[in-house]
Each structure stands twice: as structure tokens, then as C-alpha cells.
């Protein structure tokens, strides 16, 4: 969690300003007390009016305080859940790193054996053509599956990477444009347009550029895979409250409400088996958190999704 402690006591954990408490804790009891004291000095008809005013003030304040407490409790519970979730992600990161290391070694042996077997079967005599073709097909398939495992373990290692980001000043628009150009050709091929809506005069950001590139590329490729021909991916940048945000908005199928909670979990994917590792968004989430920012998603099913990276300036 990267919520910074604000020096202002009235600021909430996300930086939202709450109305002050003192009208309810000081002013309302003070007014009620003053009304009670005033009843001692005033005629009975005025007493009743003062008692009603004092009562109304007390009831109003009590209701306001109760509502604020309920809201506070709700927010606390939500923060607890988010903290638990990020601890869970960190624990999975540790575990995955260990598993990835252990699996890479047997995968390396399988890879070498495969390469050798392929070479030997390439000039094999005495076997029927069909058998030989089957054997070669099997070897090809094993190689394909090893490569699939390789992608998973390498991404897992990336996920678990605990490297401190190397910060450098860079024009945000440039970082985004570099990645947009990378996918633009593929997007054109699929009939998907990439639109830009960059805020003018954005200051340079101080961030780990290769890591940020990785995040933007991941969001862009996800958007591309989700958007049907004729759709548009829009890249937006905005600046507000000492933060800068980068949004990748697509006009694709959107995210089903039941999946919204799971999209940042490692291995969660809605793609067919073998088509996606389910690690892209969890890796991106981890990277953005390490850069001191946050990654959030909003979506209406059938109307596309927007992923927003918010970074401190």
C-alpha cells in the first residue's frame, strides 16, 4: 500500500477531504449546554423552544456522527481487505519465485534433450515415414509446451523481482508513444485505431522508465486483444493533485463484474489455455505499486474497459 500519511488530520486515506468533526464534538454540545443554561434564566414558554432547539441540535449531531462512524468503519474494512490482498500477492510472489527457480532447471534439461532428439531424428533411417512424422510432431509439441512453461517461469521471476526501481526523468508522452508505436502496426492489421488524448504541458515524470514501458505495453496489448475490428484504443494523460495519470481505454468486450476483483490476481485469465499466462496485470500491478502509484480498472460489460495508472509527480 502506498497511501501516504497526510499531515492534514481532515484528509482521508485516499486524499479525499472530510468535513470537520468539531461542529459535532464541540459546537453542538456547547450550544445544547448553553440552551439548558438559558432555560434557567428565561420564561417557561421560551424554555420549551430552547429545549426543542437543544434536542434538535443533539439529535442532528448524533445522527451525523453515527453516519460518519459507519462510513469510517466501511472504509477501514475496505482498506483491511486491500491490505490483505496486497499481502497475499506478496506471499504469492515469494512462493512463485521459488517455484520458478526450481522448475527452470528441469525445463533446461528437457530443452537440451529435445534439441538433441530433434537432431538425431532429423536424419533417422529405418523408421516408417508415419512413425517418424509422429515422433517429430511429438517433439515439436514438447518444445511448444516447454516454451509455454518458460514464459510462465520467466514472468513469475519478474513478478517476484524485488529490485529497487531506478528513477530517471522522462517525458511521459514519449514513454507512452514508444509503446503505442510498437503495437500500432498490429492494431492497424486488426482494424483497431489508436487515438491520443494527451494533456498539454505535462511535466517530466521521475520514474523507472523500462518498468513503466512494460506496464504500458501490457495494458496496450491487453486492450488490443479485447478490442474487435473497428474499435478504438484511446491513450489519455491527465494531471491532478500532484499526480499524473495514464489511462488506456478500449472499446472491447469489457470485464464481467464477477471478474473485476480477480483481474490483478496472478494466473487469472479469461483467455483460452495456452493463450495467456494470467500474469501480465498482476506483474503490472506490482510494478506500479513499486513506482509509488496505483493501477485501477473500470469497466462496463460490453462497453470496454479503462485501466488507469496513477503516478506521483
Amino acid at each position, binding site marked *: 500500500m502506498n497511501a501516504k500519511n497526510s499531515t492534514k488530520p481532515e484528509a482521508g486515506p485516499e486524499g479525499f477531504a472530510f468535513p470537520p468533526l468539531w461542529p459535532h464534538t464541540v459546537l453542538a454540545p456547547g450550544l445544547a449546554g448553553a440552551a439548558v443554561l438559558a432555560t434557567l434564566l428565561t420564561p417557561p414558554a421560551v424554555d420549551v423552544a430552547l429545549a426543542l432547539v437543544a434536542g434538535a441540535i443533539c439529535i442532528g449531531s448524533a445522527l451525523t456522527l453515527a453516519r460518519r462512524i459507519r462510513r469510517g468503519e466501511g472504509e477501514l474494512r475496505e482498506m483491511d481487505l486491500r491490505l490483505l490482498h496486497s499481502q497475499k500477492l506478496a506471499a504469492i510472489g515469494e512462493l512463485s519465485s521459488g517455484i520458478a*527457480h*526450481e*522448475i*527452470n*532447471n528441469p*525445463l*533446461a*534439461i*528437457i*530443452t*537440451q*534433450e529435445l*534439441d*538433441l532428439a530433434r*537432431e538425431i531424428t532429423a536424419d533417422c533411417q529405418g523408421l516408417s515415414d508415419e512413425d517418424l512424422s509422429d515422433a517429430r510432431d511429438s517433439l515439436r509439441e514438447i518444445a511448444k509446451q*516447454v516454451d509455454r*512453461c*518458460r514464459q510462465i517461469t*520467466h514472468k513469475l*521471476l519478474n513478478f517476484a*523481482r*524485488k*529490485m529497487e526501481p531506478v528513477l530517471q526523468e522522462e517525458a511521459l508522452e514519449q514513454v507512452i508513444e514508444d509503446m503505442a508505436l510498437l503495437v500500432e502496426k498490429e492494431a492497424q492489421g486488426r482494424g483497431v485505431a489508436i487515438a491520443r488524448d494527451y494533456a498539454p504541458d505535462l511535466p517530466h515524470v521521475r520514474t523507472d522508465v523500462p518498468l513503466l514501458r512494460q506496464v504500458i505495453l501490457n495494458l496496450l496489448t491487453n486492450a488490443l486483444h479485447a478490442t474487435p475490428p473497428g474499435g478504438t484504443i484511446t491513450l489519455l494523460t491527465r494531471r491532478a493533485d500532484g499526480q499524473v495519470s495514464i489511462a488506456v481505454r478500449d472499446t472491447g468486450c469489457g470485464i464481467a463484474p464477477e471478474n473485476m476483483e480477480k483481474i490483478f490476481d496472478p494466473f487469472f485469465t479469461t483467455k483460452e489455455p495456452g493463450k495467456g499466462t494470467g500474469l501480465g496485470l498482476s506483474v503490472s500491478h506490482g510494478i506500479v505499486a513499486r513506482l509509488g502509484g496505483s493501477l485501477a480498472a473500470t469497466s462496463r460489460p460490453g462497453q470496454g474497459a479503462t485501466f488507469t495508472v496513477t503516478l506521483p509527480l
Partner: protein
Amino acid sequence: MADPIRVCIVDDEERFRDTLAKLLSRHGFSVRTAGGGQEALELLAQAPSDVIVLDVKMPGLSGEQALPLLRAACPEAEVLVLTGHASVDIASAMIAGGAADYLLKPCPTEELEGAIRAVYDRRQATRPR
């Protein structure tokens, strides 16, 4: 014909280094293998290599510990780190310690061969004549 590139594979996984040696030999390399850092030092004391393919996590002398010793024992050899235990920290430490490149297991033989040839060619190009 040019002399074959002399490769020394240092890896504690016996099957891995033997099959890799077999493959590289078939592709025209001259290959020797060692099961750990100490054994590699003994091999290099007998004859130099052009490229050392070095694992990181090994019992006894680890790749990290062996790197400066191997470079001292055979300054003309380029060291190519090949490991399943990758971390950016270890990679940058190994590169800072003089390794020429860093590859992550599993690595297709073709890719590894390309990397061996690339570091060898680079060394040939920059070597004082």
C-alpha cells in the same frame, strides 16, 4: 578451417552439462565440462577456454564466487552466465564482475550457441593484436 571455439560448461546438473556438451560438440565446438567452480579452475589450469558457460547456484564454489577466480585463472576467456536462478541483482553483480552476458534457463540451444558465438566474436574483435 578456423579452430573450434573452446567452451567450458560449468554446471552442477550432470545430465544438463553432458547433453549440452554433446550438442555443442555436434555443432563444431570443442567442449569440456565441470561440475562446479573448483573443478572448472582445475580444468582451466590444464588448458584455457574461449568461453566459459557458468551456472550460478552450485554446491561448493558458487558461480558468483567462482567468477573472479575463473577470470584470474583464464583472463582470455569470456564468461557467459546461464542459470535458472535469475534475479536482476545477481545478473548485474555478475556483469559488474566481468561476465559478458547473462542467460536464463531454459534456453534453447540455438540461442545459447548464438550468445557463445557473439561473446567470442566480440572478444576476437577487441583483443589486442
